[in-house]
C-alpha cells in the first residue's frame, strides 16, 4: 500500500474542500489535547532526568524539544484544511499553558503560533494538495526552524554563534524526523485503525 494520492477526493472541490466541518474542528482540538496530555505524561517521567542533561548540551536540546511540534503537522495531515497546522498547534499550546508550563502562558501560546505557522506555510506552499512523506518532513523542518528562531530571540538571546547554529540545525533535523516522520507514520496507523473514517486521509488509505 502506498499513499500516493496527491489531491483530495474528486467529489470535494473548490471552496467546499477548504471549509471546516464540525468534526474537523473537534478532532483537530482533540489531537491538540491528546498531544498535550502525551507531553505531560512524557514530562512526568523524563523531565527530571533529562532537563539537567539538556542544559549542558551546546544547543542539541532543540532536537528532543521537537516533540512539541508534532501537534501541528499531525493535525494538518489528518484534517487537510488550511489553518489546520496552526490551529492544532495553538490548541496544544493552550492546553499546556492551562496545565502549567515553565515558559509561561502567553509565550507558550506565542511559541505555538510561530511553530504552527512554520508547518502551515509549508503545506500552503504545496497548495494544501500534497500530504506525502517528503512534504510532511519539510513541514516538520519548517516548524523546527520557526521554533529555533523564536527560542533564540526570546530565551537564548545572549548565546554564542556556535550554540545558535547547533540549535537551529538540531531543531530542523529533530522537527523533520520527529514532527514530520512520526506524524506521517501515526496518520497511516490511525487510518488503518479506522480512526479517520470521517476524513479523506482515512478513507483513502482504507480503500486502497
Amino acid at each position, binding site marked *: 500500500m502506498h499513499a500516493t494520492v496527491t489531491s483530495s477526493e474528486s467529489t470535494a472541490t473548490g471552496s467546499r474542500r477548504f471549509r471546516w466541518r464540525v468534526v474537523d474542528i473537534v478532532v483537530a482540538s482533540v489531537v491538540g489535547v491528546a498531544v498535550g496530555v502525551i507531553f505531560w505524561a512524557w514530562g512526568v517521567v523524563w523531565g527530571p532526568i533529562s532537563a539537567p542533561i539538556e542544559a549542558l548540551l551546546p544547543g542539541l536540546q532543540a532536537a528532543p524539544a521537537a516533540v512539541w511540534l508534532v501537534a501541528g503537522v499531525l493535525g494538518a495531515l489528518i484534517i487537510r484544511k488550511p489553518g489546520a497546522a496552526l490551529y492544532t498547534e495553538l490548541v496544544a499550546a493552550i492546553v499546556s499553558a492551562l496545565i502549567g508550563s515553565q515558559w509561561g502562558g502567553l509565550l507558550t501560546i506565542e511559541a505555538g503560533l510561530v511553530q504552527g505557522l512554520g508547518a502551515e506555510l509549508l503545506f500552503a506552499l504545496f497548495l494544501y494538495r500534497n500530504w506525502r512523506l517528503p512534504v510532511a518532513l519539510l513541514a516538520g523542518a519548517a516548524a523546527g526552524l520557526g521554533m529555533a528562531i523564536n527560542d533564540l530571540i526570546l530565551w537564548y538571546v545572549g548565546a554564542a554563534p556556535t550554540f545558535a547554529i547547533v540549535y537551529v540545525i538540531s531543531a530542523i533535523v529533530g522537527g523533520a524526523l520527529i514532527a514530520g516522520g512520526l506524524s506521517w507514520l501515526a496518520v497511516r496507523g490511525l487510518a488503518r*485503525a479506522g480512526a479517520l473514517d470521517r476524513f479523506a486521509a482515512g478513507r483513502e488509505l482504507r480503500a486502497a
Partner: protein
Amino acid sequence: MAPHEALGARAAAVSAQGWGWRHGGRRTPAVHDLDLEIAPGERVLLLGASGSGKSTLLHGMAGVLGGDDEGDATGRLLIDGRPAAATRGRSGLVLQDPDAQVVMARVGDDVAFGLENLGIPREEIWPRVDAALDAVGLDLPRDHSTAELSGGQRQRLALAGVLAMRPGLILLDEPTANLDPAGVLEVRDAVARVAEESGATFVVIEHRVSTWLPLVDRVIVLGTGGALIADGAPGDVLDARAAELRAAGVWLPSEVPWHAPAPGAASRHPLLTADRLDVARVPGVPVLRGVDVQVDGGGILAVTGPNGVGKSTLALTLAGLLRPEGGRLIAGPELAKGAHGEPWRWRSRELLTRIGTVFQSPEHQFLAGSVRAELEVGPRALKLPAAEVDARTEALLHSLRLDRLEGVNPFTLSGGEKRRLSVATALATRPRMLVLDEPTFGQDANTWRELARLIVALRDDGVGVVAVTHDEAFVDAVADRRLELHRPAGDERVAPAGTASGEARR
C-alpha cells in the same frame, strides 16, 4: 416552532422512502432501499444484529451522517416531510458513550449549549435549562462540574440537553449499554417521564429488550443492510420472530442465554490469597480497604458492587498490575511457580503464564496491526518456538471464530469481536489465573453465551477466574462464588474507601 409549553413540541413524523446510505470508503451500503413510516408520537424499539445498519438509520434521522463527501445517500429520509439533515433541532440524539457527549464543563452550560446553537434568546434559555434538568431528575446546581457526574447522570444530562431544545423526535442509540444496573434504571425512568410529558416521537436502539419494553408501542427489526425483517406491536414481534432475534443476538425478556453446569467436586485449589488488602488506583488514595478473599483454581469468583466502589481497582491489584496500598497479597506456590514476592513485583513477562488480565475496554490492550499479530504478542514475549506460536495462534483463531479476521486491524473489529480477541490474547500464554473486568458489558446475547462457555471451560481446566461484573445474569449463570463490595454506610457519593463483605458460595 412550537408554542411555549413547558417541555413539548409537536411530535415529528419520520418517513424513509427507498432510503440508503453507504459510508465513504466502504463497498457495501450500511442501509439499502429502506421504506419505513413512523407516525408522530410513536415509541419505537429498533432491533437488529451488529451490521444491520440500525445506528446508521438513527444517525440519518438525526441528520448527522455528514455531507456527500462522507458517503452516498439514495432515496429520501424525511422528518415532517423535510430532509432530515435540514431539520436540526427537530430531533435530538443521545449516544452510547457517556464520556463522549459532555460538551461543556458545567451542567447548566451543557444543557444550554443546544439552545445557544439554535439562537434562542438568553432570557428564554435559563428557564428551559432548569425545566429540562428537572424533567430528567438532575437536581444539581447549574455550575456543578460535569466531570464529577456518574455515567447515569451524564446520560441524563445528555437527555436534558436534547430535551431543552424541544425536539419532536428523540433518538436514543444504546443509551444504557455502558451503565450499571442502577444507571440503566435512572436513564430509562427519565426517558419514560420525558416521553410522557413531551409527547415526542421516540426511537431507541438497545439489545437488552426488557429494559425498554414497558415504554415502547412498536418494535422494528432490521436485518443485514437495513432490510426490514419485522415490524409491529412488541408482543407480536417478539413472539413471532423469537428465533431470528435470538440469532441476531437480541436479549429476549427474562431469557438467560446459557447456564453453566456445576463444577466437578474437589477440583479446587488455592492460587492467590488477599489478606486485609487495601487497593488504590493512584498511590496514596485508597479506594477500598481490608479485603480478604481467596482465588481458587477451578473456581469462578464474581466481584460485584455499585459503581465507584473499587471493583476494577481490586481486580487490577489481584492481577499484579497495581501495587497494594496495604495488607498482603500472597501467591501460592502453584501460581508463583518460582516468581518471587507479591505479584506486583513480578516482571511483566512473568505475569503472562501466571495471571492474565482482560480489561474492561479491549482497545486498551491492543498492540498490533492485525488480529493474528495481536495473538502472537504474548507467545513471542515468552520466546516460544515459532511452531508453538503458530499452533497456539491457529487454535485460538479457530476456537474464537476469528479465522476470517486474522488480517484485520484489531481496532476496526465490532464490539463482540474485540471482546473475543482480548480474551484470546490473554489465553494465548495459558495463565493459571484469569482476571476479567466487566467481560459481558454491552455485549449481545451471542457473545455473552460464547464468553460464558469459554470461562466455564477454563474453570474446568483448573484455571482460577475472577470476574468483576454488574451483570446479575452472568453471576447467576456462571459464577460459583461472589464477593460483594459495599460503600461505607451513609455515603451515597463517591466513597473515600469502600469495604468488602458478604462473600458467599452459590
